């Protein structure tokens, strides 16, 4: 009974999100190259966002979870297209200095 009432998943999620924050903070406190730092930040940020969305914003717990997930995937896809496209156009191949 007690086990069912106790929000084990949420507590574990909370601890995990604290760990992720701590890992991200390492980038500030330790000396590392830009590439390594950026990788850590990106990876922890995306895991963190997913964690918050699923555990604490309860995506996937209601009957319209398909609509929610499709919209999220669609949004992520468009964000990736936009960012990579902008980098490609404005930075990586831009020819006028």
């Amino acid at each position, binding site marked *: 009974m007690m086990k069912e009432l106790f929000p084990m998943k949420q507590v574990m999620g909370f601890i995990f999100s604290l760990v992720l924050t701590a890992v991200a903070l390492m980038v500030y406190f330790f000396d590392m190259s830009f590439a390594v730092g950026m990788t850590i930040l990106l990876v922890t940020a995306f895991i963190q966002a997913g964690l918050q969305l699923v555990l604490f914003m309860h995506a996937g717990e209601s009957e*319209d979870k398909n*609509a929610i997930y499709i*919209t999220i995937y*669609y*949004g992520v*896809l*468009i964000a990736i*297209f*936009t960012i990579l*496209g*902008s980098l*490609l*156009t*404005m930075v990586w*191949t*831009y*020819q*006028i200095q």
Partner: protein
Amino acid sequence: MEFFERFAIPHPSPAIYASMVAIAIVSIAIVVGITYFKKWGYLWREWLTTVDHKRLGIMYIIAAILMLFRGGADAIMMRAQLSAPENKLLDAQHYNEIFTTHGVVMILFMAMPFIIGFMNFVVPLQIGARDVAFPRLNALSFWLFFAGAMLFNISFVIGGSPDAGWTSYFPLADNEFSTSVGTNYYMIAIQIAGLGTLATGINFMTTILKMRAPGMTLMKMPMFTWSALITNVIIVFAFPVLTVALAMGTLDRLFGTHFFASTNGGMDMLWANLFWVWGHPEVYILILPAFGIYSEVISTFARRNLYGYKSMVASMVIISLLSFVVWVHHFFTMGQGAFVNSIFSITTMAIAVPTGVKIFNWLLTLYKGKITMTTPMLYSMLFIPLFTLGGVTGVMLGMSAADYQYHNTMFLVAHFHMVIIPGVVFAMLAALYYYWPKMFGFMLNDRLGKIGAWIIAIGTLVAFMPMFISGLDGQARRMYTYSEASGFGIWNMISMVGALMLAAGFALIVYNIYYSFRYAPRDIGSDPWDARTLEWATHTPVPEYNFATMPKIDSYETFWDSKKKGTPLFPDKIEKIHMPNNSGIPFIMGIIFFMWGFSFVFAMWIPLIICTLGIFACMAYQSFENDHGRYISIEEIEETEKELGGKR
């Protein structure tokens, strides 16, 4: 006195002073008229505080038509200036201000409210809902749009119009080259209207996903509702980019940052990039609801169900994705090299495929149909060939190598007008004729309507086909004059004739509204077109609760089935209906936002802070207000239903 000098127009002319006087007289006349006829209470209760999606829709459409005439007047002035070589009607500065205003007004304050107006009016009716998901937010959306539109419209009499083009490219739009407050107006007014549009996007996505009548699965939604859903998804993903770009532009102009400056680490091309990351999806925000309207109209008047429903939906979903990956084709010539240009050329041409699917679906719907050529149908039939002309030239522009020839010429101007006028404007006019009886209880005259449609269609061709030729001959866009030796004179004179034909066509529509208001019969029933979708299943005029009982949906065209096979559409008994209360908050917030924007434009910080506090006060009041809505009793519903002709 020094304080007031900032409000003076930097580059005045007698026409602008005359406009000032005219605006003052009209404003006074409106206030006096409303007071004289004692309509303030009615206006406040029935319109300014309304949260009813139908009334908001009608207000959007009225605003759109007003803006159509504002933008149209600008167009006539431009064509008049260009109609002869070395014409002296307008000088360069006025010409710049006019083409900028024309572009912004037509796209953001005419086309957008037109489509959002029809979405407001039609979508809840089509899905069998009582209102949108967040009615008060919907009202706020309208008033934010209206505040933004009015703020932009007063720029030419207070402080000067923006003059850097509707694209407002940096560094031209920066303080160094655009010294008047005009571009501040651009940044702030569009920001305010854009916030409203973003809220609309969220509102309608939620409405369509959550509030459909029982039994209406996604694949049983009418095509216009599908197009509205896809459009709102695009709005939600595209408009934040505009919000951010405008905020950065505002920071650059008013707070000395250098995001888009060409010095100090700024990147002027980033504006063009961000603008078109929003701007290209925006094109599809305009065209997809128009496609939805055509689908409804063509299927209704061909008396056939829409051919290829699934492929229609699929093509819209694909268009919505592709619309986000083509934006670079707006600036092929600006230095990103052949590799990137090739990628975006290919994605651009790929969009022609799903669009072509839609065109063929309409043609196949017509095939073996029993066609009745009403005015909305005539607009839809004129749309197909004219839009194809615009589309094919679009593919030409999409080839990046060839684009170096067309870029920044009248060829481009001709292309996008040939897409937007037959695509969006014809659709909105078709929708105006099609939904007019549902909105106002009488039909617009069909004969006058058809004459108008032909004048507008021929006017479009006469106005814009010559631009293809002068553009290929090298006439640059946005140039206020040209020499006689260039030989552009004859083409521009023909364009002028076309522009006048368009003006005559729109004047005829206004006359038609007047004529039909006086003479059209009022006993047209609730389904004058013998249509197929749910919005025609309720009464005319539509009662505020839309449907007395919820319709039960079991096919894509339940209303048609109930008419032809007699399946019951409204099996339930009448129960009391829960409706939202009216609220003055959205209107008041609209006014505060207008003052907020005005203070921002002129960098008057103290009024700006006061207005910001006012906005937050409104939001706080809204949050703590205890308003559970109200119930309409069974007796009241039965009485209304009896008055309107029985439960249907």
